[in-house]
C-alpha cells in the first residue's frame, strides 16, 4: 500500500460526508446505499465512523459531474477515467467526484428500483412474463396512463408483484420541487417543451418544469433516466424510442446492425434516418459501490496500490462478492489503527434446504421445505419470508408482520396460520415498519412511513404524523423500538435513536443519539428492532443479534430457525 506524501490523514475519527447531487442512472436510494456501504468497507476495519450530513461543511463532499465539473481535472466522457478523489484536508481536499458520463450501476447492468406498486420498492426482474408475453425492459403495456412498470419476479402472471419504473412522469430529483414529477408541456424561455430537455444547461443533465410554466414559477427538477436510457452517442440519457426506423427497416429493440463492433444501439427518436439521434444501449456499467469504496480510500489518505487484487489498485475490476484485501486493511490501519475488535459473525447454515414436492403457491400448506428456484408466496408461510416488515412482542407473544398479514408465535413449533392485519387492527395499512406495546399502559403503537397509530383495545387514534412526536422532517420511518418499563421507548431510524415519553408522546431532549455509540456490535442497518423476553433483538437480513440489557451481544442467530422455530 501507499499513503500520500506527508501521510495526509484526518485528525479526527468521526468523518462527515454530504451527497451534493445524484446521478440519473440510479434511484437516489440506491446511490445513498452504495455510498453508505462503501464507507462501511473502511469503518469495518478502523475506528472511523461516517455520518451523512445535510447542512454545513462536511469532511467529504460527493458529487457527480461531467467533463469540466468545477475543479482543474476534467473528466473524459464515457469509460477511461471513472472518478477521482482528493486526500484528506480542508476545502476540496477529501472530496470525491464521479464521472456522470459513465453508466453507473451496481456492476451487472441497469438497476431498476421500483416505487409504489406492491413490491415494496424491489428491483425489476428482467425478463418477466406479463399476459404471456416476455418483457426485457419496463413497459406501459396494460396501462393507459403512460406510466411504465415492471414485474419484480420473473412471472407477473403468477406472482402479481410489480412496481413503477423511474420516469419523469413519476418523480424528479434534486432541483427545487421536492421530487414532484414533470408537467408536460411546460414553458421555458417562451418555448413549449413536451419532454425533458438539456436546454439552458451546459452540464448535459436533463430537466423539466414541475409546473406548466417554468418562466413564471421557476419550479424544476432533474429527470431520472429510464431503464432504456442510452449511453454516449449524441443523446446521452435520452430513452430509446421503439419502434425506430434505420435504413428503412423497423426495429423494436436495440440492434447491432450498422456497427462493426457489435455493440447494441438504438435511436432516440422514431427515425434514425431522419434525425440521426442515437446512443448505445445500457451495458454492465460500473459498480458505484466499488468505485466509491476505492475513491473513499483516497479521501482517507491511501494512494494507489500495486497489488492487482487490492481495492486501491487503480484499474476498475468488477467483483461479485467483495471483501477488502489485506493490503488495503494494512494501509488504512497504518493510518488510523484497527477497530475495537471483530464484529459478531452470522453462523453458517448447518442444513441444506430440501426440495419441495409441492411447488404450487397460494396454498395454506405449512410445508417448510424450500426450493430456492421456485417462487413462493411468503404470505402463506412465515418460514418462507426472507425479511419481515416488523416483529414485536404484543401481549407476551411474538408477532411477525408481513404484507398485510401477521403470525403469532405459539408455545411450541412455528406459527401455523396467518391472520389478516385488517381483521385485528382495521385502521392499519398492509405494510408497517414497526410495532410495540408499551408495558405500562398496554397501548399498542404501529408505525408506517411518517405515520403512526395508537390502539387501546379496539379504539384507534391516528394516523398521525411523526411531527406530532417531535421528529424532524428528514426522519422517513421508524425501523424499530425498544420498550422499557418506565414509560419510555427507544425508537430507531438509521444510525440514530430517540427516546419517546409514551405518556406525553414527545421525544425527550438530548435526542437523537448515535446508535453506534450506545448499541455497539449490532448492525447499523438493522431493519427490525424489538424487545422479546427482556432481550433486545436487532435483525439484519435473515439474522438477529441478541443483546442483553447491559448492551452486550450474547448471540447471533437465525430469525427463521431460532425465533420462528422453522424445521
Amino acid at each position, binding site marked *: 500500500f501507499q499513503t500520500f*506524501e506527508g501521510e495526509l490523514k484526518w485528525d479526527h475519527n468521526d468523518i462527515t460526508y454530504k451527497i451534493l447531487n445524484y446521478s440519473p442512472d440510479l434511484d437516489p436510494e440506491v446511490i445513498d446505499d452504495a455510498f453508505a456501504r462503501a464507507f462501511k468497507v473502511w469503518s469495518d476495519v478502523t475506528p472511523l465512523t461516517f455520518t451523512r450530513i445535510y447542512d454545513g461543511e462536511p469532511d467529504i463532499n460527493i458529487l457527480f459531474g461531467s467533463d469540466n465539473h468545477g475543479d482543474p*481535472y476534467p*473528466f473524459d466522457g464515457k*469509460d*477511461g*477515467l*471513472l*472518478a*477521482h*478523489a482528493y486526500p484528506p484536508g480542508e476545502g476540496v481536499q477529501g472530496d470525491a467526484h464521479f464521472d456522470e458520463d459513465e453508466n453507473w450501476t451496481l456492476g451487472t447492468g441497469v438497476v431498476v428500483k421500483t416505487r409504489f406498486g406492491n413490491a415494496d420498492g424491489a428491483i425489476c426482474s428482467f425478463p418477466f412474463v406479463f399476459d404471456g408475453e416476455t418483457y426485457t425492459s419496463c413497459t406501459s403495456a396494460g396501462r393507459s396512463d403512460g406510466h411504465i412498470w415492471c414485474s419484480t419476479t420473473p412471472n407477473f402472471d403468477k406472482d402479481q408483484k410489480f412496481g413503477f419504473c423511474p420516469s419523469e412522469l413519476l418523480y424528479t430529483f434534486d432541483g427545487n420541487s421536492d421530487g414532484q414529477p414533470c408537467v408536460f408541456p411546460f414553458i421555458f424561455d417562451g418555448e413549449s417543451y413536451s419532454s425533458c430537455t438539456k436546454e439552458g444547461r451546459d452540464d448535459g443533465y436533463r430537466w423539466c418544469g414541475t409546473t406548466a410554466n417554468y418562466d413564471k414559477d421557476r419550479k424544476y427538477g432533474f429527470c431520472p433516466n429510464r431503464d432504456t436510457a442510452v449511453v*454516449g*452517442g*449524441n443523446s446521452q440519457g435520452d430513452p430509446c424510442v421503439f419502434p425506430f426506423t434505420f*435504413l428503412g427497416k423497423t426495429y423494436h429493440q436495440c440492434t447491432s*446492425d*450498422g*456497427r*462493426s463492433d457489435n455493440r447494441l*444501439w438504438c435511436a432516440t427518436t422514431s427515425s434514425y434516418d431522419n434525425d*440521426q439521434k*442515437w446512443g448505445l444501449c445500457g451495458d454492465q456499467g*460500473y459498480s458505484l459501490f466499488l*468505485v466509491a469504496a*476505492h*475513491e473513499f480510500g*483516497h479521501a482517507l489518505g491511501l*494512494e*494507489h496500490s*500495486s*497489488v*492487482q487484487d487490492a481495492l486501491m*489498485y*487503480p*484499474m*476498475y475490476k468488477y467483483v461479485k462478492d467483495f471483501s477488502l484485501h489485506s493490503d488495503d486493511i494494512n494501509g488504512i490501519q497504518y493510518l488510523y489503527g484497527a477497530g475495537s475488535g471483530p464484529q459478531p459473525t452470522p453462523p453458517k447454515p448447518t442444513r441444506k434446504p430440501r426440495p419441495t414436492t409441492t411447488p404450487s403457491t397460494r396454498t395454506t400448506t405449512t410445508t417448510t421445505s424450500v426450493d430456492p428456484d421456485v417462487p413462493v408466496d411468503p404470505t402463506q408461510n412465515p418460514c418462507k419470508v426472507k425479511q419481515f416488515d416488523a416483529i414485536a412482542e404484543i401481549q407476551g407473544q411474538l408477532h411477525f408482520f408481513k404484507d398485510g398479514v401477521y403470525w403469532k408465535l405459539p408455545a411450541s413449533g412455528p406459527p401455523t396460520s396467518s391472520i389478516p392485519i385488517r381483521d385485528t387492527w382495521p385502521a392499519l395499512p398492509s405494510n408497517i415498519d414497526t410495532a410495540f406495546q408499551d408495558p405500562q399502559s398496554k397501548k399498542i403503537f404501529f408505525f408506517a412511513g411518517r405515520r403512526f397509530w395508537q390502539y387501546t383495545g379496539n379504539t384507534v387514534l391516528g394516523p398521525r404524523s411523526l411531527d406530532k412526536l417531535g421528529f424532524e422532517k428528514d426522519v422517513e420511518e421508524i425501523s424499530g423500538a425498544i420498550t422499557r418499563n418506565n414509560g419510555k421507548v427507544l425508537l430507531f431510524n438509521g444510525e440514530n435513536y430517540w427516546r419517546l415519553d409514551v405518556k406525553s408522546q414527545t421525544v425527550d431532549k438530548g435526542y437523537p443519539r448515535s446508535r453506534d455509540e450506545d448499541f455497539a456490535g449490532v448492525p447499523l442497518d438493522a431493519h427490525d428492532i424489538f424487545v422479546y423476553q427482556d432481550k433486545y433483538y436487532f435483525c439484519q437480513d435473515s439474522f438477529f443479534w441478541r443483546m442483553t440489557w447491559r448492551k452486550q451481544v450474547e448471540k447471533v442467530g437465525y430469525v427463521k430457525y431460532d425465533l420462528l422455530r422453522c424445521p
Partner: protein
Amino acid sequence: TSHHKPVSVIFPSDIRSNSSDLERAQKYLIRYGYMPPGLQQTDNQNTLREVVTKMQKKLGLKETGELDGETIAAINSPRCGVPDVGK
C-alpha cells in the same frame, strides 16, 4: 447465407481520433504522473522505455519496457483518475 451485403454506418461522434498506441501511451504516462509534460517531444526511446518500465512496475505488470499487449490493455482499461505517481 445472407445475400445482403452488410451495411456499416459511421455514427456521428463515433469517429475516433486515429491516435496511435504510442500517442495514447504518452498521454496516459503524463496524466498519471509517470512522465512530465513535454518529455514526449524529445522522442527519446530510452527515456520512454524507462518510463514504461516504471509504469509496468507500479501496476504490477511484466516489466518489459515495451508497449506490449498487456501494457496497452492496461492503458485502455477504465480506472481512477488520481495519478499513480506524484501529487
